[in-house]
């Protein structure tokens, strides 16, 4: 599941949440500086290296990326057609590769394909980088961050409770679906409208159950003293260590260098 923390002891795990978020923002800035796929490929390699350092299971990442493959292909094709050669600044990118319709119609430019590749690499970077961020950082750390940003407790409580109940609701939905299918409900056949109608027997019990659950939840919150004081305690305390400052300095230096390089025309297309 998205946002599921994988416990670990890697250097990435041990960085402060603030360091990781800043580094993530730096990465996003750098990512959009260069249009050349070669530069973006280099960034992908760096991020992949970080993911490896965090010892993230490759299968887990593939689980996120796999379903995106068709999207990647479509992006490549569409950019190949939609970006006319004139939008590119370099000679190589302006070259028209071929025409898909006789009479020099529907040209596909080299730049279009290359830019498609860049977009693809950017998505890849974002997916991997955000996975590294969320899979190596416990939810509690993000809540600490919110708290440091003066977001009210209620807000972070809603976020945790919401995430906590995702598996519960998934289980309930599966039970309801089974119960309805067992008495002859046709849920997976028919057209769009029929399918939506078929979900009524699933949605109604789910909503009724959620209402009942929310009342129980409210009671349970009171039973645990929710709202007893404004100064609630959290066990985790954020702490910046020398390595955090080191990483932050490196991020700043690299970002500045990248901006300077881009201004001089490196990585253009």
């Amino acid at each position: 599941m998205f946002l599921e923390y994988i416990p670990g002891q890697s250097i990435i795990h041990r960085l402060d949440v603030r360091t990781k978020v800043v580094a993530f923002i730096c990465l996003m800035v750098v990512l959009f500086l260069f249009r050349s796929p070669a530069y973006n490929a280099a960034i992908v390699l760096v991020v992949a290296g970080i993911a490896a350092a965090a010892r993230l299971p490759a299968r887990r990442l593939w689980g996120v990326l796999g379903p995106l493959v068709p999207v990647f292909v479509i992006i490549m094709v569409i950019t190949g057609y939609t970006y006319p050669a004139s939008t590119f600044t370099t000679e190589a990118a302006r070259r028209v590769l071929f025409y898909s319709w006789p009479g020099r119609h529907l040209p596909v430019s080299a730049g279009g394909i290359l830019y498609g590749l860049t977009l693809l690499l950017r998505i890849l970077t974002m997916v991997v980088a955000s996975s590294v961020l969320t899979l190596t950082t416990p939810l509690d750390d993000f809540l600490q961050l919110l708290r440091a940003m003066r977001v009210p407790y209620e807000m972070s409580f809603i976020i945790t409770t919401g995430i906590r109940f995702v598996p519960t609701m998934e289980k309930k939905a599966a039970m309801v679906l089974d119960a309805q299918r067992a008495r002859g409900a046709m849920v997976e056949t028919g057209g769009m409208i029929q399918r939506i109608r078929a979900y009524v027997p699933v949605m109604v019990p789910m909503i009724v159950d959620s209402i009942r659950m929310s009342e129980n939840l409210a009671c349970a919150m009171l039973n645990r003293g929710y709202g007893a004081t404004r100064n609630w305690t959290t066990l985790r305390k954020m702490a910046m260590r020398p390595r955090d400052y080191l990483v932050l300095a490196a991020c700043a230096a690299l970002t500045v260098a990248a901006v300077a390089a881009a201004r001089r025309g490196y990585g253009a297309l």
Partner: protein
Amino acid sequence: MAEASVAHGRSIVEVESLSYRYPKGKAPTLKGITYGIDAPRFVAIMGPTGAGKTTFAMTLNGLVPQFFEGDMWGRVLVMGMDTQKFRIQTLVSRVGLVMQDPETQIFGITVREDVAFGPGNMGLPPAEIEGRIAESLRAVRLAGYEGRFTSELSGGEKQRLAIAGVLAMRPDVLVLDEPTSELDPLGRNEIYAAVDRLRRERHLTILAVEHSSEDIADRADEVVVVNQGEVVWRGRPRDLFCNVPLTMSFGIRPPQVCEFGWRLYELGLISQHDVPLTVSEAADLVRRILKGRAIPRGVLRTLREAAPDDFPPVTPPSCQATLHGTSGSDASSQTQGGPGRPGTTTCAPVAIKVEGLEHSYGPTTQALRGIDLEIRRGEFVALVGQNGAGKTTLVKHFNNLLKPTRGRVEIDGIDTRGETIGSLSRRVGYVFQNPDHQIFCSTVEEEVGYGLRNLGLTPEAARERVREVLRFVGLEAVADRHPFTLGKGERQRVAVASVLVMKPNILVIDEPTTGQDWTGAEQMMRLVRDLHRAGHTIIMITHDMRIVAEYAQRVIVMHKGKVVADGTPAEVFSQREVLRSAYLAPPQISLLADELAEIGMPAGVTTVDEAVALVAAALEKAP
């Protein structure tokens, strides 16, 4: 802290003429309750569903009336604090309430975070919270679970975590609302082991709403019976349960050994004073009245042959030819035979055939590890085993909700691989445990008729079929009512009817009595028996071994994805080693038979009637 406040002799709980009416409630739910506790003890609150037990529990920490509003009369003081004058959040540090459904009481993503929620809300310093996490988890025997994800805990573990979360606020009074009703026997044992430990190690006052008299008989210091909003009885468990008619008049099922003792008393064999409360007391009693006499051999077999209607028939009545061959599954014959398979020896056509069935939910979790099974038409099979043993996974293969990873399943000789869930719904009806997971229509009639929509019946034919089914389950009078205005028992009947309407021969019924009081459970089981008599093949999942002994013809025990025992209740319950390893608790009468084995009580005795008849037969014999 608790000790100090008790030492002052102040009362712990003081309830003065408490009445309460819910907003929009017609009649008061609680009527003039006066009750007090002045020394730490374990109090069981009992009574039928709807008696007001939960409402009473919620008055103790102020949820009623502060959260639920409504009208309250009288006073409730806990540790000297008036529950109407202090905020709930303040009261919770003196009185902890654990409600029924643990799922909605867990807030943390990890166990540690969850236990920290309460103390964190109180604003305690982190070091103090750490200490309380360790202490509370130890108290409920969850030490070492700190980093576990709460979503991956078992039902029993979740319930214990819910208790730990409340204990972390160090209350003097702990109120548990039906802490074990949804759990398997292993889960129940875990909870009661935790409760025993809490009582030993802390001076906690515990009030528990509980349906099972057997679990609290020798634990509770006091039983309070609530009926229709009033306290109708309070006293020692012995004074209640050993008076069987009194217990039953409150809608409470007495422990099996008490029923046994009471029957002996009615026969004039013992005095009322001698009615036992526990299995060991019952064993001592029998030894004493038999004065060295042994139970004559063969009585059990004669009994079962003489009264086939009173005891579960071993084979379906349709199968006269082989009756003789299988009726020998008496206690005396099964010792040589090993686990018998009554289903495979009858001549009724095979309804369900399972061959080498395996099922995996992922690369690492194998839920079924090779099941071979044959269930014949007209059988009444109880499928038992602890949660996670694979019972539900197995039965979900009968109607294609799950497909075999390996092996095959045949229903009425048809391989399920070529079928859909829809087509199988006319052969296999699956009644789920919680009726609220399927009810979505605004009338009972519509709800029951839902499955027929895809069957292509004419509206008249469909209507007639719905009427017929409603008549059978006894819901004709409420056909036009909204299902959610019905009681739990009736809603469960709606669920049964909505499956019956497809006219399946095979009925899979998942935990029909879980979470119900005795009356509700009895009514449900009477319906199941009627369905069986009407010719349905019944496969019932249950944790209640007493129900198994009284209703089922055949018991299949599952453990870790395998069938570990299969036979009549008498045969299976006498295989104590198997039951122990599968974490099943046999009925008290079976435990009694164990203790009396040396004086000839056959291990196959499973019901009160049989045990009484055997003792009576031993007494008739000349000394």
